[in-house]
């Protein structure tokens, strides 16, 4: 079973540890740089033929239209799914969702399930919950398999095993596959094609015998009761098609009103995510199709803090997120610390706002430190296909952290000092650290005292812009 993020140190300490890992930093710089270039090429291509900005506006509009009337769309989704033969469950939190899934699996008398990569099932710790009930949950995405066999944590939304190189993956396969099923061939090389072939053989026996499949969904269409899963490897198709029973755990923010609304989102997501015009496979299903695929279909609609985020006027827009990971790939803080430092399945700029929005601030230092894991450079907003103004939400969340600690523990200065400063420089560079502390406090004073009212306002510019600082100091200038 994979490890969990529970008990992670706050961002500054975790970032500091990550900065010492040369392999991680090398892999991350290569990965984010490669994906950034691919994405940019396709954005430019689309821009030459229509308008990327108009497409972003359309995509943001679709998600916004769903959120501002979420109750209506959720009820409609329940109605259409039910009419299509699916069973709809509602879960307030992780424990409820896990219990629903475990009960369905047990009702079929099986002790294993196959899973499609899904952020939400990681969020609720489903694999661990099923393990506690004696049910093995097999991850089938190649990267997730690497993470699971290595008893490791995902570090990126799109490429969760990006912190591992091919030699490490070969070792993991040789050492661990046998205990989980079909062993890796003894003469396995570290060629990516050979490693992928070993994963194909290892997982195929699981796909062919699986009775229950578990997935998330990228989108859920209220009007038609259609779920959509976007993927590359075909493991998603396997899990969605071959088992007799399919259980999909879907965050309530995944709903879109109409089938046609998929247009802008299906054009934005692959270009922003993998830098492809379209991902290899997209599957859609509307409940049960007689004679084709699972004949018992369940959908678990999950809150788990989403209604907290929805109630936050500034933060609500974070629920538009389509988990493309473009904001991670452009983030200078993420590039240097990697995903683990964020202590959550949602890392990078989106994680820095989504975690405090879902969990609330003022209870947990780890969560409270996340809004400071940024230099407010704005690259994430520029990259985001659904135009989430992450810098404004970060600033607003910082103000809320300040408010939560008012009169209590004087921790905010420490958080402000350590957040982005550790990641971007090195705590030994005190001059720089002080500059960030000053910035953090100016923002804290300004927004902690007054109510932040407009989502459109931009945060106050630091005296020296992040980009200028980056250029001047050659990106902090430290090898690692």
């Amino acid at each position, binding site marked *: 079973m994979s490890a969990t993020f529970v008990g992670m140190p706050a961002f500054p300490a975790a970032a500091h540890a990550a900065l010492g890992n040369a392999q991680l930093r090398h892999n991350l710089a290569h990965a984010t740089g490669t994906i950034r270039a691919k994405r940019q090429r396709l954005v430019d291509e689309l821009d030459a033929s229509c308008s990327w900005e108009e497409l972003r506006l359309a995509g943001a*509009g679709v998600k916004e239209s769903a959120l501002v009337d979420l*109750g209506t769309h959720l009820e409609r989704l329940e109605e259409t799914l039910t009419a299509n033969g699916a069973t709809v469950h509602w879960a307030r939190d992780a424990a409820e969702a896990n219990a629903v899934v475990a009960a369905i699996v047990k009702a079929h008398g099986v002790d294993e399930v196959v899973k499609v990569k899904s952020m939400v099932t990681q969020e609720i710790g489903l694999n661990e919950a099923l393990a506690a009930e004696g049910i093995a949950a097999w991850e089938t995405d190649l990267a997730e398999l690497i993470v699971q066999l290595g008893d490791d944590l995902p570090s990126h939304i799109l490429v969760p095993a990006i912190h591992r190189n091919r030699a490490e993956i070969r070792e993991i396969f040789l050492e661990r596959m046998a205990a989980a099923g079909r062993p890796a061939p003894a003469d396995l090389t570290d060629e990516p094609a050979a490693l992928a072939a070993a994963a194909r053989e290892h997982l195929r026996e699981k796909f062919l015998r699986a009775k229950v499949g578990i997935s998330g969904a990228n989108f859920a269409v209220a009007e038609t009761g259609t779920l959509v899963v976007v993927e590359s490897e075909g493991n998603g198709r396997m899990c969605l098609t071959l088992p007799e029973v399919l259980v999909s755990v879907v965050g309530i923010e995944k709903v879109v009103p109409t089938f046609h609304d998929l247009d802008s989102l299906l054009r934005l997501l692959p270009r922003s995510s993998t830098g492809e015009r379209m991902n290899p496979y997209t599957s859609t299903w509307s409940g049960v199709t007689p004679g084709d695929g699972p004949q018992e279909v369940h959908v678990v609609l999950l809150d788990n803090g989403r209604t907290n985020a929805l109630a936050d006027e500034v933060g609500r827009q974070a629920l538009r997120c389509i988990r493309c990971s473009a904001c991670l790939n452009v983030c200078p803080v993420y590039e240097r610390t990697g995903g683990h430092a964020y202590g959550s399945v949602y890392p990078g700029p989106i994680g820095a706002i989504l975690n405090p929005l879902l969990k609330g601030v003022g209870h947990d230092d780890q969560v409270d430190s996340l809004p400071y894991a940024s230099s407010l450079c704005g690259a994430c907003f520029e990259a985001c296909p659904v135009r989430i103004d992450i810098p404004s939400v970060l600033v607003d969340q910082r103000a809320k952290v300040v408010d939560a600690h008012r009169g209590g523990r004087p921790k905010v200065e420490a958080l402000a000092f350590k957040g982005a400063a550790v990641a971007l420089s090195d705590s030994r560079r005190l001059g720089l650290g002080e500059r960030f502390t000053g910035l953090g406090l100016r923002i804290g004073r300004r927004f902690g005292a007054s109510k932040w009212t407009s989502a459109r306002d931009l945060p106050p510019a630091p005296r020296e812009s992040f980009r200028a600082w980056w250029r001047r100091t050659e990106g902090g200038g430290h090898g690692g």
Partner: protein
Amino acid sequence: MVEASKPAREEILGRVRRALAGVEPGYAVPPSPRIAPVSDVVAHFAERVADYRAVVERCSAADLAAGVAAALPAGARVVVPAGLTVPVPGADEDAGFTAAELDGYDAVVTEARVGIAETGTIVLDHGPGQGRRAISLVPDRHVCIVRADQVVPDVPDALPLLDPRRPHTWISGPSATSDIELDRVEGVHGPRTLHVLLVD
């Protein structure tokens, strides 16, 4: 377990309503922009599909049967869906085979519902001539027949042609992963070879 979720439903919907108190429910979604027209949509489709390292061949209706035969390796065990309009000598028609039985086939031949030129995507809606989702998934080689008149310029042209009540599989090239050091490897779990016959 369904009963237990009843209070959760009411509570979640209640929280949603409270969270949105005072928020205007109507939101005008700006239309998504259309790409500039291309002169030859079918050629554009062929190029974009080939970009994914799929095999693309154009042929006339008269040559289709021969094209299908040539796309299948000698001696391959082939499964076809009911309603396929092209004869494939020696192939077995899907009789509701189990996944394990399908795993014994080397190749599948299907038709398609729509081709999307801009993204190089083939959409199956698993109707007659396309078959259940499993048959175009388990065999390692997928020979897919797309008629030129099924090709549309872009995603917004395809959606109105698709019936949302049916399951769909959108296929853009063969199965692929970049999970290991971002090196692209074709073929993980889906068919490792996608062979498209584009019929003029």
